[in-house]
């Protein structure tokens, strides 16, 4: 099955709220070799004006991934994980993610372009906090291979 071109314009329902924990931020920071104290030391983060430790910039992918799971679970999408390559990734920030944030992601499919037997799928996950304010928009481009 090829990628369904009718996916364009599709907006998925908001994900369940994701509560950002301090130890999760520390764990992620260690995993991306983030040694700056703002990511691990609450006092260092407070000195910069944040309520708690500051997540590394790409931590937003954790919420983006929850939204992409919705897309992959869509039986009509034609997107098969085994044939999918992550081609591009972009984040646009209003502010960094901080421990204690409760985040929700809303996925929109903004482009599907046929390439040979496959397709390039561009999606945007808009991440907002408990107050409904914008935190970050994560844009991903997936290259989905066609049937053999």
């Amino acid at each position, binding site marked *: 099955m090829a990628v369904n071109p009718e996916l364009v314009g599709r907006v998925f329902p908001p994900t369940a709220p994701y509560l950002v924990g301090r130890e*999760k931020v520390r*764990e*992620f920071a*260690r*995993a*991306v*070799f*983030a*040694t*700056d104290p*703002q*990511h691990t030391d609450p006092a260092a983060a407070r000195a*910069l*004006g*944040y309520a708690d430790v*500051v*997540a*590394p*910039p*790409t931590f937003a*992918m*954790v919420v983006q*991934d929850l939204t992409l799971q919705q897309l992959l679970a869509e039986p009509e999408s034609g997107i098969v*994980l*085994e044939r999918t*390559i*992550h*081609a*591009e*990734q*972009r*984040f*646009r*920030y209003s*502010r*960094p993610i901080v421990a204690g944030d409760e985040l929700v992601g809303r996925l929109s499919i903004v482009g599907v372009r046929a390439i040979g037997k496959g397709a390039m799928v561009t999606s945007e996950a808009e991440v907002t906090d408990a107050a409904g304010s914008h935190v970050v928009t994560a*844009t991903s481009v997936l290259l989905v291979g066609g049937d053999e």
Partner: protein
Amino acid sequence: MTAPAVGDVVAERTVHLTRESLVRYAGASGDFNPIHYRDDVAAQVGLPGVLAHGMLTMGLSVETIMPWLGDAGRILEYGVRFTRPVVVDADAGADVTVVATVGAVDAGAARIDLTVTHADTTVLGKAQVRVRLDA
């Protein structure tokens, strides 16, 4: 943070990745695609070996500038293209080298270009961070 000029190298580092790094990132990120820790699965889908997660390479690359930048809140935008894979050998691991250069400066903001290489090959394309410079 000193006022940057185009061409300045503001930060650089080399990160040594091992299979342990990949398992650690899998756990921290939730990305458990087995091509990032199983040689048999990587071979089965035609890869040259177990690969680092693209998002791990993207994540460690931008962290290179954080001590210089001082505050993650200065980052306005960050984007990359995943152009070449980083193969992480079970014994030897893999070195990823990041050089951060000022690409452009305009009103209160700068574009930092990240050159990210592994085994003398550039692995990220158009890796650019837009940062706020004013207080």
